[in-house]
């Protein structure tokens, strides 16, 4: 039993750190650190830099352009990227649909889509949730009827994250309405330019346009866009959700956010005293840092257990709950560290192209809005209550 990284892993960490030092654009890192809203171009710029190094699709098999990194190396990479202020990768293409295509797709699908994802030529979004299918995802109603060599898709998807940037969407659709819930679902790849698709923005409580509604009105999708077998889409959906959840603990992100919290709490003063020197506030930070340490240790234990190719089981549900709660708690303290300075809602200062003088401080504009935005963490990817159901069923067998 040894909690230390091996010399090889430490060397890898240095290599990643050096790469980030040389290649991560300073303006991107600054915008990430300050919690600003990144533009599509910001994401794509970083994706292309990573891809040039061969470090974009790290979870893919080597033959498709991925890496042969161990789970521990991937953890180190994530942690270093977050610490340096690299933008969090938008997962829908590279880390969600791609693993499904690699696992269940045809050779033609792999040959066509994977290189386009690597080169950032496609921006994918996820068509899972519907107005009547949130936590109860399998009750989705969007229909896909076979019409010759096409499917005719009708229905509505919602909470489609960054769908406004996307040229492609992967969808769960119902292909057999007579089958039991999970059994009549298929996994379809759809071109967003297809006639009959309408995207409407949903503005969230922090004023941000991050999610959308997507409407399908007699959208014709070629049958070769089906992934896996017809009516077996739930298998793909579950596979993807496990991938989504691993990494949802967001340890690296939380560490970076905690460091930023300490910066804010050091800079903000009340009657000449730093917030971080106020014993009560300092104890709150200490408590979070200890909890983060505990979740990190648990993550490392799970990673170590999956090192030889194992798949994290329901443990990933525990990490999703704990990780999301910590990130929310950190933004809670950031907001509180600012006192009344958290109140002004200065949308221009939240954008990544803001270059003016901040009304107060560069760090003060985003914490309150981040706090509200990150309420999503305990809702998406299977709400934290759904995760508890999973634990009760799979771990506790209740």
């Amino acid at each position, binding site marked *: 039993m040894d909690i230390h990284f091996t010399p090889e892993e430490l060397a890898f960490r240095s290599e990643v750190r050096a790469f980030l030092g040389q290649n991560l654009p300073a303006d991107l890192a600054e915008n990430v650190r300050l919690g600003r809203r990144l533009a599509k171009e910001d994401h794509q710029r970083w994706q292309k830099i990573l891809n040039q190094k061969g470090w974009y699709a790290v979870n893919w098999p080597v033959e498709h352009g991925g890496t042969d990194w161990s789970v521990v190396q991937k953890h180190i990479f994530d942690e270093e990227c977050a610490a340096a202020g690299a933008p969090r990768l938008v997962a829908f293409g590279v880390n969600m649909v791609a693993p499904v295509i690699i696992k269940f797709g045809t050779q033609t699908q792999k040959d066509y889509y994977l290189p386009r994802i690597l080169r950032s030529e496609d921006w994918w979004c996820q068509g899972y949730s519907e107005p009547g299918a949130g936590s109860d995802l399998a009750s989705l109603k969007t229909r896909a009827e076979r019409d010759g060599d096409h499917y005719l898709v009708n229905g509505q998807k919602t909470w489609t994250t960054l769908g406004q940037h996307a040229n492609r969407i992967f969808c769960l659709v119902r292909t057999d309405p007579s089958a039991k819930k999970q059994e009549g679902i298929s996994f379809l790849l759809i071109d967003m330019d297809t006639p009959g698709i309408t995207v409407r923005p949903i503005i969230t409580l922090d004023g941000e346009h991050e999610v959308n509604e997507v409407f399908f009105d007699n959208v014709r999708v070629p049958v070769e866009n089906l992934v896996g077998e017809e009516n077996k889409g739930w298998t793909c959906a579950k596979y993807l959700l496990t991938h989504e959840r691993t990494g949802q603990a967001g340890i690296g992100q939380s560490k970076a956010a905690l460091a930023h919290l*300490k*910066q804010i709490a050091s800079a903000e003063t009340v009657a000449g005293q*730093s917030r971080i020197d106020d014993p009560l506030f300092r104890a709150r930070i*200490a408590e979070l840092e*200890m909890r983060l340490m*505990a979740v990190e240790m*648990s993550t490392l234990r799970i990673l170590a257990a999956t090192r030889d190719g194992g798949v994290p089981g329901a*443990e990933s549900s525990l990490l999703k709950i704990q990780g999301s709660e910590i990130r929310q708690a950190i933004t809670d303290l950031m907001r509180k560290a600012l006192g009344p300075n958290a109140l002004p809602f200065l949308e221009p200062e939240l954008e990544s192209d803001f270059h003016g003088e901040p009304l107060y401080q560069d760090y003060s504009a985003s914490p309150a809005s981040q706090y509200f935005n990150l309420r999503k963490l305990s809702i998406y990817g299977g709400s934290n209550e759904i995760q508890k159901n999973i634990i*009760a069923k799979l771990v506790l067998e*209740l």
Partner: protein
Amino acid sequence: MNFELNEEQQMLADTVERLVRNTYSFEQREVFYQSPRGYSPEFWRQLSELGITSVPIAAEYEGFGGTGVENMLVMKELGRGLCLEPYLHSQIYAAGLVEQLGSAEQRQSILPAVAAGERLLTVADEEAGSHYHPEAIECQAVPCERGWRLSGRKRVVIGGELAHTILVAARMSDGEGVSLFLLDPGAEGVSRTGYPCIDGPRACDLALADVYVEADSLLGPAGKAAPALAYQRGRAVAAQCAEAVGSMEEAFRLTLDYLKTRQQFGSPIGRFQALQHRMAEMRGELELARSMTILAACVADDPDSESRSRRLAAAKFTVARASQLIAEQSVQLHGGIGMTWEYSLAHHAKRLVMLTHQFGDDDFHLGQYSALLEVPRQASQQVA
């Protein structure tokens, strides 16, 4: 990074687990508890025969030379069985102090007998007004011809009634600092008042009325015991985390079984989502406690550093919070039966809560961590 036990460690864990399972049924424990010693000398003898009492002691003193990881494995099983023997206080905490501070003669004369389970030690470092701060004690050591005279009152010395030697912490009357003295409890002027603690093990209060101790009973340099006390309390904290994890695992197991068997409203109560979610939360906290206990075990023997202190404080904090949650919720989920003396769960609940009253509770360790919090340079300059 490797969280696997090696073959030897797995064997050690299995050995203790088996011994506890065979010897320490809950009914047996109740018999041990009611007996005059308050624990089982027979079980202690078995621990010693199997070499378990020697695990924390260095090989040069006829010990097994175990690390924090071996201590963790032993303590977890003792915790699972709610064992009443003073293993932590004698074999880990007190023996660690002797090993760290003692002269070659002191170590040679004491530790082999401790390793063999023949000589019990304990530490008298708490007083009415110290509350986990050994540096705040008032007991005094006054120099006299060829030794010292100790005066003061010590509280809640775990295993103190039967210890052959008690390490007494006392403030030096002629200077700064705290010293540790090896005290023979039979010495003139020592009186002990024994009692059971609410969570099972026995302890005593110790009154010292001008007790003469010889010059060579001083452990380590005069007035300089505080760093060793802090360091060894860190090792004790790591071991105690493991004890709590063993107890939590058992309380959790009992509760899960109960949810699957207890019928109300025509179904097992584990079908109810409110209870399922509470169990899921408990499972999550237990997992964090396990992780931090492993971390504590791995750093317990590291050289003293702020990083070690932070990690041990974080471990005790995490485990104390989890212990209280699991104790309270296990009782709640059991309903009335969880409150009865005749059911082991209630005793796990008591143990889990009261373990936090030794070596610092969650607030104490939050304070420790907070004081050691790493802050950006800008702020530390402002502090200075």
